[in-house]
C-alpha cells in the first residue's frame, strides 16, 4: 500500500471515530431524557411553569424563556461589537496596535467563565442594583456578562474569514472607485459571510450554553421574568445547580432539560445554515 491509500484510511478511521463519539453523546442524552417526556407528557415539561421535582412537576418553560432572553440580550450586545472589532483588526488597525490587540483577544477567550461571573457579581450586579433598581442579580446582568464572553469567539473567527479573502476583492472594489467602507460593506462582508455566520452561531452557542458565569449573576429564581431586571434561571443553570444530587425522575428531568437545549441549538444552526446558503 502506498502512502496515499494509508493516509486516506487513517483519515477515514479518525473521522468515523469522531462522528461515532458525537453520535454517542446525542444518543445517550436522548435515551436518558426521553422516557420522562412519555411518562409526564411533552407539553407538561416544555410548557409547564411549575418546577418541583420532588412533587413530580417538571415544567421548564420559565427556564426556556430565561435562556432565550439572556442569549438574545447577549447577542444584541456582542455581535455588533464583535463584528465591528474584527473589521477593525483586518482593515483599520495600525500594525503597532494589532500586536497588542490580537493577544488581548486570545486572552479574553481563555479567561475562565467563573472569573467573568465573579467580576460580574462584584461590579455589574451592584451597578444594576444601585442605578436601575431590582435585586441586581438579573437577566440584564447575565446578558452583559455573556455579551462580553462571546466577543472573542465572534472576533477571532470573523477575523480569520475576512483576512483569508483574496486581496483582489478589495483592490478591485477600490479600483472601481468605491470608498474603503463601501468596499468593506458591499464586497468583503458578503464574501466572508459563511465565516461570519459560523462565528455568530458559535457565539450564540457559547452564550446559551454558559453555566458557571450566569449561575453567579442571574439569581436563579424559577419564575417567568417580567422585566430585564428580574432574576431568572436558564436551562443550563438548572442542570448545573441540581445535577450533583439529582436521582431517578429528577435526574431524567435534567437530561430532558439537556434535550431541550439540544433542540434549540439544532433549530438555531439550521436557521443559520439556511441564511448562509440563501444569499
Amino acid at each position, binding site marked *: 500500500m*502506498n502512502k496515499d491509500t494509508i*493516509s*486516506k484510511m487513517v*483519515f*477515514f*478511521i*479518525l*473521522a468515523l471515530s*469522531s*462522528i461515532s*463519539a*458525537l*453520535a454517542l*453523546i446525542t444518543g*445517550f*442524552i436522548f435515551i436518558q431524557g426521553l422516557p420522562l417526556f412519555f411518562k409526564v407528557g411533552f407539553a407538561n415539561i416544555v410548557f409547564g411553569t411549575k418546577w418541583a421535582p420532588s412533587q413530580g412537576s417538571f415544567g421548564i418553560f420559565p427556564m426556556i424563556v430565561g435562556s432565550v432572553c439572556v442569549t438574545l440580550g447577549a447577542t444584541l450586545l456582542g455581535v455588533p461589537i464583535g463584528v*465591528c472589532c474584527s473589521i477593525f*483588526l483586518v*482593515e*483599520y*488597525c495600525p500594525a503597532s496596535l494589532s500586536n497588542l*490587540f490580537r493577544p488581548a*483577544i*486570545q*486572552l479574553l477567550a*481563555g*479567561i*475562565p467563565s*467563573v*472569573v467573568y461571573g*465573579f467580576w460580574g457579581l*462584584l461590579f455589574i450586579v451592584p451597578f444594576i442594583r444601585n442605578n436601575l433598581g431590582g435585586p441586581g442579580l438579573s437577566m440584564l446582568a447575565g446578558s452583559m456578562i455573556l455579551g*462580553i464572553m462571546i*466577543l472573542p*469567539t465572534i472576533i*477571532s*473567527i470573523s477575523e*480569520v474569514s475576512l483576512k*483569508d479573502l483574496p486581496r483582489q476583492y478589495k483592490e478591485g472594489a477600490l479600483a472601481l472607485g468605491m*470608498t474603503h*467602507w463601501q468596499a468593506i460593506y458591499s464586497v468583503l462582508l458578503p464574501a466572508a459571510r459563511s*465565516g461570519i455566520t*459560523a462565528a455568530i*452561531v*458559535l457565539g450564540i*452557542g457559547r452564550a*446559551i*450554553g*454558559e*453555566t458557571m458565569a450566569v449561575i453567579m449573576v442571574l439569581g436563579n429564581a424559577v419564575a417567568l421574568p417580567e422585566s430585564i431586571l428580574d432574576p431568572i434561571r436558564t*436551562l*443550563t443553570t438548572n*442542570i448545573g445547580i441540581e*445535577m*450533583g444530587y439529582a436521582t431517578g425522575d429528577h435526574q431524567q428531568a*435534567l437530561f430532558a432539560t439537556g434535550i431541550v437545549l*439540544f433542540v434549540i*441549538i*439544532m433549530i438555531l*444552526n439550521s436557521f443559520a445554515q439556511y441564511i448562509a446558503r440563501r444569499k
Partner: protein
Amino acid sequence: MNTNDKTIEKIAKAIIWSAALFVLVILTAIIAYILAKGLPILNWGFLTQIPRNMGRSGGISSTIVGTLMVTAVALVIAIPFGIGTAFYLAEYTKESWATRLMRFSAESLAGIPSIVYGLFGFIFFVISLNMKWSVLSGGLTLSFMILPTIIRTSEEAIRSVPTTYREVSFSLGATKWQTISKAVFPSALRGITNGVILSIGRCIAETAAVILTAGTALKMPTSIFSPTRTMAVHFYILAREGISMENAYGTAALLIILIFLINVVANAAVNRLMEKGR
C-alpha cells in the same frame, strides 16, 4: 466621491474604532482587577504547597497539577481525531448528504453546552463505566467537548487554503498525501492552531464539565485514575462559598497568567513553523 460618501465613511470608521476601544477597555478592566488583587498572593509557597484547611491556607499545587493532567488527556485524544476528521471532510470526500450530516452534527455539537457534556460524562464515564471521579473521566469529557470545535475550525482553515495551491502541487507531480502534508497543511496551520488554542483555553477554564467528572479532591493526583480538582473549580468553590477571597484571587491571577503564557508559546510556535515553510 461625494460628501455623503465621506460622511458615511467617517461614521463607519468612528463606530468601528469605538467598538475596538470598548473591547480593550473591558478586557483591561477585568484583567487589571484580578491581577491587582491576585498578584500579591502569588509566591513560591502558594504555587508549591498543597491546599490546607479546604483551601483557606496553604497553596494550590495539587490543583495546578490536576488542571495540567486533565487538559493533557483531553488534547492527546481530541487533536488527532479532530484534525484528522477535518482533513477527511475537506479533502477526501465529495459534497454529499453524508458529509453535510457530518458537518451539521459537528457544528451543532460545538454549540452543546459544556454542562450537558458534564452531565453526559458524569453518568457515562464516572458511573456507567465506573471510572469514578478521575483525571481520566474529566479529560475524556473535555476531549468530547472540544472535538467539534477543533473539527469546525480546522475544516474552515483547510477550506480557506486557495485551490491553486493544490492544483500547482498536483501539476508538479505530487501525490495527494504530499499535497496535503506539504502544501495544504502548512497554509492551514495558522487557522488550525487558532482552533487548538481556543480549545486549550476552554479546557483550562472549564468548570461545569469537570466539577462532576474529575471531582473536587484537593489531594495531589498520582495517576490518571486519581480524582482531582482543577484550578477553575478551585476558584469557583473558594469564591462562591466565600472560603478565602485572597486565595481565590491568587488562583484566578495564576489562571490568567497561565493562559497568557500558553498563547505566547503557541503563537511563537506558529511563527517559527511558518518561517520554516518559506
